[in-house]
Structures are given as structure tokens and as C-alpha cells.
């Protein structure tokens, strides 16, 4: 979300006057405090006809083939340059639905809050959720709030699940991927992971690295509208980064994937930060980014279309699907050498020197 949007949303949604400054165990008890919290906060700010029913669950009419997705969010710190856990939780599930070729519509929203979370922080998260919902065109239709004892959580965990109807022109399936398909990356890699890392490690760079968290549904639906079934797969390389996702796909389709280091879009300062910390940006998490596998004959046109979208300005064709080295991702380095890009055995750990 842009800075100007953020200031606007703070002004539009001032925090109500409450008789509590922090969230306590009582707010999750189901009693008066819970009702106060929900009335003054959640229900009010996220109000829509389905949520306003306030029943045990939401009533929704399904019109067509539907995608269903869920994700949990436990980022630390909960506020980071470029966003916070609230908008991340909305964009995450919205994007997962979009990767299915669906138009996201209805989301559930569950909080697990550690007692002691400042009400002002919770409010800021709620406001971000509201704006992220508006931006992506989804409604929160059901939810839950639980509070755990201090030390049994990490400020706030959020789970969102969502449904959306599949776009009639969408035919997203890894089975549709063919030899010769081009792989397009929608923007700069590693921004989200490095934004989080720089705050967590207390590292200061010349200018702040911003997370790329954003909703991608409008961008993807527009592409599906124009290129239909020539888009074989869209997927977002979040945890584990681009390298991990490409490996998963190579194994799934039993074909090789060839990528070119020189074509990888990456912001200069993110690249520098990765060098400094001894991390490979290919394995660093992304949020507002997607990979698409598309027919060779429409690749250039799709790239152009994508580059005209605010979420795809830095898009690039980074590689293609090949017959050789099935199940493997092979990278051609800047100097022309080739290496296998494998999955990491675990979390990426910084090197000694």
C-alpha cells in the first residue's frame, strides 16, 4: 500500500475511544469484553451485509466452479516497511485464490492474539485489513478471535480462508505446461523477505527496503481475460522463494526448467542486502509477485500487457520449460556457467564469511 493511502486510511478510521489500552485474556472469553472488542472494532470496521448477519457462519450462494484456499500468517515483526500482518493476511489469501484463476470474493478472518497486544496496534491492523479488502474487492464474511496467555503467541497470528469463483476463461493446471513454455516473473524478487529481515536484524541500509505485499487478483484476472488458456500456470513464490517454487513445478511436470540469472529482476539495494547477509535472493520470500508459465507464442504480448500494469512494471521472461534435465531447475549464471538450483534442506542460513 502506498504511503499516501496509509495516511488517508488513518484519517478515515480514527480509533474509537475504548476503556482498555491492551488486549487481555478477557477479550477472548466470549463475554462482555469480547463483545465490546468486536462491536467497536471488527464488526464495525469490516461491516458488510453478510458479516452483519452475525450468525455462526456466513450464507453464500455459489454460482460456479469455486476455488477455496487458506493460509496462516505469523510474521515478526507485525509491522514492517511496506505493510503489516493485516494486509499481508488479506493479500495472501486473495493472491492464492487468484493463482487458481479465481475471482476472490469472500474471506474468513481469525485472530489468535497474545494478551498484551496494544489496542492501537490491533486497530491499525484492522484498518489495513479493511483497506486491503476494499482494494482487492473481497468481503470478510465470518471470523473468530481468540486470546492466548503472554508467551504463548507472538503478538498476533492471523488465519484467512477464502473462496472465489473460477473465471470462465481460466484453465490453470500444471498439467497444461508444455516444453517451450515461457516463464514470466511479474516483478522484483526478494523484496518482502529482505524488508522483514532488515527490521528483524536491525540492519539499516541507505534507503529502506519495502515489502512488496499487494493484491494481485485484478492483474491476474486481466491477463486471464486477455490470454485465457494460453496461461498454463500462475503461482506465487512466497515462502522458499522463486527457486523452491520452480523446483516443485519441475518435479510435478517431470520436465526441466531453465532460468537465466541475468534476466532476474531485483532491486539494487535488495541485491546488496542479500550479498551483505550471505543470502541467495532466489530463496528469499516474496509477497506481491507471481510466476506464470505461458505458451511461447503469446509470451511477448503477455509480458507487454503485464508491464503496463502497476503490479508488473518490472516483469521479465526469466526462462523456459525444456526437455532436458527433467525435474531439475538449471540456472545459467551471469558469466554463462550452469548449475542446478536445488531445494534447500531447511531454512536458509547465513554463511560465516
Amino acid at each position: 500500500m502506498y504511503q499516501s493511502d496509509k495516511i488517508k486510511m488513518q484519517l478515515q478510521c480514527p480509533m474509537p475511544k475504548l476503556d482498555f489500552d491492551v488486549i487481555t485474556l478477557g477479550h477472548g472469553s466470549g463475554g462482555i469484553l469480547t463483545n465490546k472488542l468486536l462491536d467497536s472494532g471488527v464488526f464495525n470496521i469490516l461491516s458488510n451485509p453478510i458479516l452483519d448477519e452475525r450468525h455462526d457462519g456466513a450464507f453464500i450462494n455459489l454460482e460456479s466452479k469455486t476455488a477455496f484456499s487458506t493460509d496462516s500468517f505469523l510474521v515478526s515483526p507485525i509491522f514492517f516497511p511496506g505493510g503489516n500482518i493485516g494486509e499481508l493476511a488479506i493479500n495472501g489469501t486473495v493472491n492464492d485464490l487468484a493463482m487458481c484463476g479465481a475471482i476472490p470474493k469472500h474471506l474468513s478472518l481469525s485472530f489468535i492474539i497474545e494478551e498484551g497486544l496494544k489496542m492501537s496496534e490491533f486497530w491499525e491492523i484492522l484498518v489495513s485489513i479493511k483497506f486491503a479488502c476494499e482494494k482487492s474487492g473481497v468481503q470478510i464474511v465470518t471470523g473468530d478471535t481468540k486470546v492466548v496467555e503472554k508467551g504463548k503467541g507472538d503478538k498476533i497470528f492471523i488465519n484467512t480462508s477464502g473462496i472465489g469463483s473460477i473465471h470462465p476463461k481460466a484453465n490453470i493446471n500444471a498439467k497444461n505446461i508444455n516444453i517451450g513454455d515461457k516463464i514470466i516473473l511479474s516483478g522484483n524478487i526478494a523484496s518482502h523477505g529482505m524488508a522483514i529481515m532488515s527490521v528483524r536484524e536491525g540492519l539499516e541500509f541507505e534507503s529502506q527496503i519495502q515489502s512488496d505485499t499487494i493484491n494481485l487478483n485484478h492483474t491476474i484476472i486481466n491477463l486471464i481475460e486477455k490470454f485465457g488458456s494460453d496461461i498454463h500456470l500462475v503461482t506465487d513464490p512466497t515462502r522458499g522463494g522463486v527457486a523452491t517454487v520452480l523446483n516443485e513445478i519441475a518435479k510435478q511436470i517431470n520436465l526441466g526448467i531453465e532460468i537465466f540469472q541475468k534476466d532476474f529482476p531485483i532491486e539494487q539495494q535488495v541485491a546488496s542486502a542479500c550479498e551483505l547477509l550471505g543470502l541467495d535472493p532466489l530463496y528469499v520470500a516474496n509477497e506481491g509477485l507471481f510466476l506464470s508459465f505461458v505458451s511461447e507464442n503469446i509470451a511477448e504480448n503477455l509480458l507487454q500487457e503485464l508491464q503496463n500494469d502497476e503490479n508488473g512494471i518490472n516483469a521479465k521472461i526469466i526462462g523456459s520449460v525444456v526437455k532436458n534435465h527433467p525435474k531439475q531447475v538449471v540456472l545459467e549464471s551471469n558469466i554463462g556457467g550452469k548449475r542446478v538450483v536445488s531445494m534447500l534442506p531447511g531454512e536458509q542460513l547465513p554463511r560465516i564469511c
Partner: protein
Amino acid sequence: MKYMSEYRDPELAKQYLEEIKRTVTKPWSIMEVCGGQTHSLVKNGIIEMLPKEVTMIHGPGCPVCVTPLRLIDKAIHLAQQKNVILCSFGDMLRVPGSEKSLLEAKAEGGDIRILYSPLEAVKIAEENPNKEVVFFAVGFETTAPANALSVIHAHRKNLKNYSILASHVLVPPAIKAVINDDESKIDGFLAAGHVCTIMGNSEYYPIANKHNVPIVVTGFEPLDVLQGILMVIRQLENKENKVENQYARIVREEGNPNAQQIIFDVFQTQNQTWRGIGEIPESGYGIKEKYKDFDAIKKFDITIKEAPENPDCISGLIMKGIKKPFECVQFGKKCKPTSPIGAPMVSSEGACAAYYHFSGLIEA
């Protein structure tokens, strides 16, 4: 940032490769001593680009690989104590001890923190006066000044709760040990550029002279490594045995005297055990008597029994260039990056991990 692209230029890389091909007339085995160089060779796909006459041998300069098993067990033991915060560089965490790794000890509740600098550990000690803070001070000459400085800082601040578990190894004795091994057939060496940034080049002249091997102090960017290889091959083809400095933009002949002063204020050379290789005389740093209060080994009564290495692991032979990783019976079978039985399968600098990924093996 400068230096991000200048030494990765594809055109220049091509020219170096062509020059290497033009120069080489017979097979040569060249050892890149430092794990950072191994990492660069693998990451940039350089090994495959070299002519078949040139064989690169990944040397023992991988701190993760050569830290003795017993010391890792000690670190794990300390990390399991309730009042201890164990701080470490990231890639030590996955190295297998005799029973578990630090990563597993962390999952079991040990307070283990990944740091980028030992000075952060001093800060943690200041902030946690009721806890013992131990920094797992691993590495070659390159990391020694910062580790020593942390001791000096803690001493100045009169901190009673900071100590280091030191396992410092030195490059020149390791090169000698490799050369002196009867089975070793290394023709020339790329010395570790950053080690020489600290220590200078003087230690390498007697080695090159006595053993008749070319030694080229080399950097870590792809063009550095390619130029270093070319310089070694030129010497080999001309039957020369000089010490040359490819990394002159960083390495001065005398090294960094200030850093050396800090090292020798805190450390003294001692015999050192290298995992997989054994004891090498005068090949490590121990903490001097005057800083003994900061020596975790002396400070804590850590009695753990000596555990045997996995007998299947031939890491010593691999690091000396006598065997290739795929000659190990467990390579890719029991020993994989997710379940390493030896340390060189852990780090991206380790020879076995490098070969594993390179050989295109896929873990299910």
C-alpha cells in the same frame, strides 16, 4: 554498491576462459583453499566451464567442515543449559554433532541465536546480566579479529557473563598438511583472499619455495577466481613456484597490522584438531592466559565423552583432494544435505554438498 557487477562481467569471463584454454597443455589439479571460493565456483557454474585438463579440488577452508565434532558437542551441551544463551554464525547450526545439531538443540528449547557479528553477542551479554552468553567463535584468520575484539570489548566493559567457545583454524598449516600427505597430488593453490587481507602474504613464500608449488592469493568474485586459476596455470606451464597476489585490490603484502595486533592480544597459536583430518601442529588459535575468564572451555566444566566420527565419512580424504565426494560409499545414499553424516555435506561451501547439487541428484 560498487563491486556488485564489475567482477561478474560475462565478456571478461569468456576472455579469461579462452585464455585458460589457450594456456593449458596438460592436466593440472588446483586446490581452492577457501570455502568461499568453492561457493563461487559452484554458484557461478565455473567448474563446468573450465577445460577438462583443469581439475578443481575443494580444500579444507570451510570452517563449518573442520570444526571438531567434540567442540560442536560442547556447544550443544552449553546451549542446553538453562542459564546459557549460545550465539553462533548461521551455518554452524545444521552441522551434525555426535547426537544432534545445534538446530535440533534449538528446537528442543535451547536459547541459540544466529548472529552476524560477535560484537552483537557482547551486547546480548550486557542486556542479560543474569545469563551466561557464549559465542561459538569459529572460523579462519578472517573471523579471528572480530572474535578477539569481542573479548577485548567484554573485558573493557568488565562483563563477567561473556565468553567464547573458540575453534580457530589457520590456512598456511593446512596447506602444508595437504602438501605433506603422500597421497595428495595438488599442483597449485588458490590461497584464501580474505585470510591474506588480515595476515598478508609472507607465510606463503616459504611454502611455495620449499614444496615447489605456485600459490596465488585469490578473491571470490567469478572473475577473481578465473584470473587466479589462469595465474596458477601460467606458473605451472612455465614451471614456476611464485606467490602472486590476484586480489591486490584488497590484499596488501603485509596484511592488516591492526587486525593482527588484536588477534595476538587475545590469541596464541596452538595445535588444533581439524574434523576429518586430525591434529595439525600450530594450526589454530587458543585464548591467552590473560583472557582465560573469557574462554568458555575453561569457564564451564564441560565433560562430555569423546564420540567417534561416523566411520563411513571420508571428509578428510576429500578435503585433502585425495578422494572425490562421489567415491564415498555413502554419498547421495545415507549422506544427503537433509541428513548429512559428515560436515562437508552441510554447508554450501562444503565439497560434498557442492558435488551433490552439481551432480544433479534430487532429494525426494
